[in-house]
């Protein structure tokens, strides 16, 4: 006797607790086994590129905030860097230092949400809250600095919108010493938890050549075992002055490039960010943060592509200027958008529960995927 079986199509999202926003996944499943995953995007397509064409160069900055809303500083910076390159602006030392510090703080804050939501998807809800609690410290530092908790509009073309708060250095130092101790708590509670390792090790293994061919970047690429970091490999700003390591996936709990490796790379990256902040915080030179801001931004005709290492990977801005005050075309190479593409490849042959774990370990932000 043979039983007739059918594959089932399961729509995950756009409203689903673990799709990190409004992603829709079309899973073809046989029982619990996933045969195929088709992501459907666009539920948060906010027309960034159209807005960029309609705005003046400096008016675009607030819109860049809303791309990767968990790492708004990085988005500001990438855009500012692209326009600065197009216009040939050299920004003052003080600005560079402040940018590095806020970007690294932002990287920590962003990884905290990424790790937390990854843990929450797997069922450990408490680390999620602990990470959010620590994130509030960073948000309060940013709030002192520029008055916003999430979307800062802080890094402008040629400078910053405000100088730092007088308490900034003190608060950052406090946070660094506090958080260095707290990361250990995270390791004890989650990273080496047996169930967590069981759920993530050997799941969603991303081989290196696939990762490169799919254009993966950031922790998703480094989890596969290559120390490729734009801060080191295509240095921008003053990152060449700092001493830091690039954590890579070593397959400590399973194969190289599994979910646990991607998770662990993020944890170690937070430590390295703390190191960079420690090195930079005492050397902020005096100066005016707005001295290099041009009165009128009108870059020459031409194209520019710059990329920076955002928490989620390589954030690229491709700007075409036709010599006007508005950009002719701005295209964002969003790291989440490219990293998400590999999801279908990773999920094949795993169970439904693993799809959640893999998606969490890739760490997407829908604002950036859909733009």
């Amino acid at each position: 006797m043979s039983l007739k079986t059918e594959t089932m199509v399961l729509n995950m999202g756009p409203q689903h607790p673990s799709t990190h926003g409004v992603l829709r996944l079309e899973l073809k499943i046989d029982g619990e086994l996933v045969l195929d995953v088709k992501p459907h995007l666009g539920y948060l397509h906010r027309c960034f590129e159209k807005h960029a064409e309609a705005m003046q160069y400096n008016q675009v900055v607030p819109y860049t905030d809303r791309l990767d809303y968990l790492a708004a500083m990085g988005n500001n910076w990438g855009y500012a860097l692209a326009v600065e390159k197009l216009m040939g602006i050299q920004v003052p030392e003080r600005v560079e230092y402040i940018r590095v510090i806020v970007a690294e703080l932002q990287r920590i804050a962003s990884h905290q949400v990424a790790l937390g939501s990854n843990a929450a998807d797997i069922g450990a809800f408490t680390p999620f809250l602990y990470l959010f609690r620590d994130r509030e410290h960073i948000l309060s530092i940013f709030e002192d600095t520029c008055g916003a908790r999430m979307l800062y509009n802080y890094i402008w073309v040629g400078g910053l919108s405000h100088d730092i708060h007088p308490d900034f250095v003190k608060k950052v130092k406090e946070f660094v010493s506090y958080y260095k101790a707290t990361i250990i708590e995270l390791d004890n509670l989650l990273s080496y938890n047996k169930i967590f390792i069981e759920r993530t090790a050997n799941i969603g293994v991303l081989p290196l050549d696939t990762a490169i061919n799919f254009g993966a970047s950031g922790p998703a690429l480094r989890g596969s075992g290559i120390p490729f970091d734009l801060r080191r490999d295509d240095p921008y700003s003053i990152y060449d002055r700092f001493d830091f390591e690039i954590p890579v996936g070593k397959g400590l709990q399973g194969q190289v490039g599994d979910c646990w490796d991607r998770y662990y790379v993020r944890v170690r990256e937070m430590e390295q960010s703390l190191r960079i902040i420690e090195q930079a915080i005492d050397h902020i030179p005096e100066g005016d943060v707005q001295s290099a801001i041009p009165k009128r931004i009108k870059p020459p005709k031409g194209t520019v592509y710059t990329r920076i290492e955002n928490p989620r990977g390589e954030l690229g801005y491709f700007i075409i200027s036709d010599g006007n005050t508005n950009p002719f075309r701005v295209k964002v190479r969003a790291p989440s958008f490219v990293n998400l593409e590999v999801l279908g490849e990773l999920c094949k042959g795993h169970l439904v529960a693993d799809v959640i774990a893999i998606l969490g370990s890739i760490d997407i932000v829908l604002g950036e995927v859909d733009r």
Partner: protein
Amino acid sequence: MYQFIYDLTGNVIISTLVTAVFPLVNVLIVALIGVYLERKISAWIQDRVGPNRVGPFGLFQTVADFIKMMQKEDATPTDIDGKLYNLAPVLVFTGCFAAYAAIPFSSQLIGSEVEVGIFFILAVSSFTVAGILMAGWSSNNKYALLGAMRSAAQIVSYEIPTALVVLSMVMLMGTLSLTKISEMQTAYFWNWNILGGATLGLSKFLLIPFMIVGFIIIFISTLAEVNRTPFDIPEAESELVAGYFTEYCGMKWAMFMLAEYGNMFAVSAIVSILFFGGYHSPFGYLGNSLGINWLIPYEQAFWFVAKGWFFILVQMWLRWTLPRLRVDQLMSLCWKYLIPYAVVNLVVIGIISLL
């Protein structure tokens, strides 16, 4: 208890009704306090405050939840299997409710003193599986169906180690009656089964390690049977939205919730009866030393409830600490580890009890 009320009123119907209301009230109270405690405890674990606006310390939070749920619209989706859909919550609740009939809260306070108490409880609590399957199937929702299938596989599998441990205890004690099992572990904690039982001798000390293993096995498998983290796979929020009760709202959903918390207490009660002396106090009775006999049942009820709540608190503590297992890991834990260990445990306890 039935006998007591029958003596008081002399009416079969009244005494049956009163006896039946007692477990119902108990389930309600357990659920009300349980939900509140769950929220408070999760809040404390997570560095939060928890409900504190509704009544003093948020004590009326669950009352408000309950009243709100009563006035919710009974929205039923189209294309459901109506009969099964409506029957499922009732069945799940019945399973939980009926189990309370045989649980001895004290030497006097027991709904029905059935001789096959533990067997009865194991049997009626399996209603839950049928109810959950019905709920998942009739909802016509893929998440619910997946959740129901997972749940059926999980509960059926984990009944085996539970039953094996229960069997070894029954073999040791020589009775199926929960009252007698409790009675045999007389007051004072060194007489409890976890410490080898009341009979002194070599076997008492030989038994201790196997009792601890048995306790761990039954605690893990009852955790799985009531769908608590790390085994809350049927209702895994982040995977299956809400599992088998995805399409239920208002009071029907509340029945599932009542049954969940009711079951939590029921399994904690069973664990404490089998291993921790049931309703017996760990250090003797105040009533005995003062010579007030009527005080003893109250003390017993207190200790029983306290033990039950202690295990519920442990369940909550685990829930807010651990991640969730995957469905295949859950099954392999059961079939590859718990059942073999339980069988070995059964054999060893059998040999020791022959000594």
